[in-house]
């Protein structure tokens, strides 16, 4: 019996070794191909590290003259990001659940996934333009563009968290005669909540930093200022703005920690 079993192991690991080897070979080829495409040349980085130091020196010392202004702009960005993210979370919950293959059959989850793929793949600028022609220039158009893109991202991340859950607690609810929705509310959500909160807060944070869309539609905000001081070579101002952003991101990370702690 034992020898049979250990034979079985060896045979299996023989087969496994083959596929593993093939897998590694493919990986090496792909990485080599990508190495060329990305024109990787790590040595340069060390040879010319001095240049980086010189450039970095341009950023110090930060000038705090316009700090008030930047804080105001930070607040504007936060306002926009709040609604862009909140709407996205509200939509990503149903879409995320519908694109999880442990909750929805393939003829639902596949189309929903493709829709979400499109929301992510289509450039935010395109959405921004679409919304600009409907609601005019301004932060609202930016909010909407952020919302659509963020929905695509969150739905994907939400659904992958759902697929990684343990089926036990949901089965525990199912057998009480509860409906599908109750099963999700009481069996699934408690499991995924910490992760959902953490990816939502991450997207909130990255929406705060997303200057591009907002700048494009005249939405304003800190990202636009950052961009402009950088393009204007006012690096000491840039440094101040970055500090404001770092502080905001840090505070957010701390809030995020505390919120998540309540659910872990």
């Amino acid at each position, binding site marked *: 019996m034992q020898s049979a079993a250990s034979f079985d192991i060896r045979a299996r690991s023989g087969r496994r070794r083959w596929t593993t080897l093939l897998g590694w070979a493919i990986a090496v080829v792909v990485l080599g191909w990508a190495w060329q495409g990305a024109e990787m040349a790590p040595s340069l980085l060390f040879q*010319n590290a001095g*240049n980086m130091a*010189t*450039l970095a020196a341009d950023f110090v010392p930060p000038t705090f*003259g*316009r700090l008030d202004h930047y804080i105001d702009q930070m607040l504007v960005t936060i306002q926009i990001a709040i609604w862009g993210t909140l709407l996205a979370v509200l939509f990503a919950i149903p879409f995320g659940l519908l694109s999880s293959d442990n909750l929805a059959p393939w003829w639902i989850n596949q189309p929903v996934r493709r829709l979400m793929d499109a929301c992510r793949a289509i450039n935010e600028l395109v959405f921004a*333009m679409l919304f*600009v*022609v409907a609601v*005019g*220039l*301004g932060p609202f158009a930016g909010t909407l563009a952020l919302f659509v893109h963020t929905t695509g991202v969150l739905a994907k991340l939400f659904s992958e968290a759902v697929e990684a859950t343990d089926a036990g607690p949901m089965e525990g609810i199912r057998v009480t005669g509860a409906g599908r929705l109750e099963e999700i509310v009481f069996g699934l959500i408690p499991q995924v909540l910490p992760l959902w909160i953490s990816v939502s807060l991450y997207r909130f944070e990255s929406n705060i930093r997303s200057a591009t869309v907002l700048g*494009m*539609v*005249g939405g304003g905000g800190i990202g636009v200022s950052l961009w*402009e001081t*950088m*393009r*204007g*070579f006012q690096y000491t101002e840039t440094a101040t703005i970055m500090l404001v952003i770092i502080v905001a991101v840090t505070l957010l990370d701390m809030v995020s920690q505390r919120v998540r702690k309540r659910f872990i």
Partner: protein
Amino acid sequence: ADEPLRFGIISTESSTNQATQWQPFLDDMSDALGVKVEPFFATDYAAVIQAMRFDKIDLAWYGNKSAMEAVDRAGGEIFAQTVAANGAPGYWSLMIVNQDSPYNDVQDILANASKLTFGNGDPNSTSGYLVPGYYVFAKNHVDPNTAFKRTLNANHETNALTVANGQVDVATFNTESMERLEITHPDKAAQLKVIWKSPLIPSDPLVWRTNLPQQTKDELRQFFLGYGDTDEQKAILEPLQWSGFAASDNDQLLPIRQLELFKQRAQVAADDSLDASAKQQQLAELDARLDALNQRMEARDAAQADNTTAMVD
């Protein structure tokens, strides 16, 4: 030299770059100079200028504003400028309104500003922001940020589309973008009415780093200035919408510098956070620099009554 020549190409407001459009020209350049030419197509100038500063690129094609930064900060020097396909030595900034708009000139607009929404350009745009800012607003002593019911900043495309759709009453634009819009979206272009056209804005310059070997410089100058004569070369330049190159130097930037200084002066004047004496001092300083610029420009005008200075009216 065996080192390839590194050529930075920025999408400026007056062009789009496609590697494929550039390739034949770059091949010719490589043949003529006998070195490999390595192009870098970048969408923003900041990194390209820094690269020039640390000798990571040898020459670059910039917009006027970015060329000024390259000259001031990265040891760059202008040696040529492009000549448009229609022979125009540059392009023009525009103010546009909707076809159905009751307003027909800048005075109408300024008179009714408090009722209107204004789509201003990106603050770094020469034709979308700097030029109209100076000629339309500063010269008329109007602050666009306060005069209009609402002022927004966006890029040319968005501004044009929102005016065509009637969401913005008046916006800045330029002739190059207009030409492209007429080809790609004749219906949208037809919705627009031009109510103001600026003086000529010099076309985009070519800049090399000053510390390039003299021999390379000579070869480059020779190649660019001599290009565009044969039919083959014309065919190569056609998709780039040029007919050739003209010699130029850092003085090409003088009008831009003037506008830039004027913008700074306006900012200082409007800055309430400065106390009166500091403000006075800064303004005086800026005025002095403006004067110096004016003198240089006059001197240059006198020397060569050239088209490119037509901006200063």
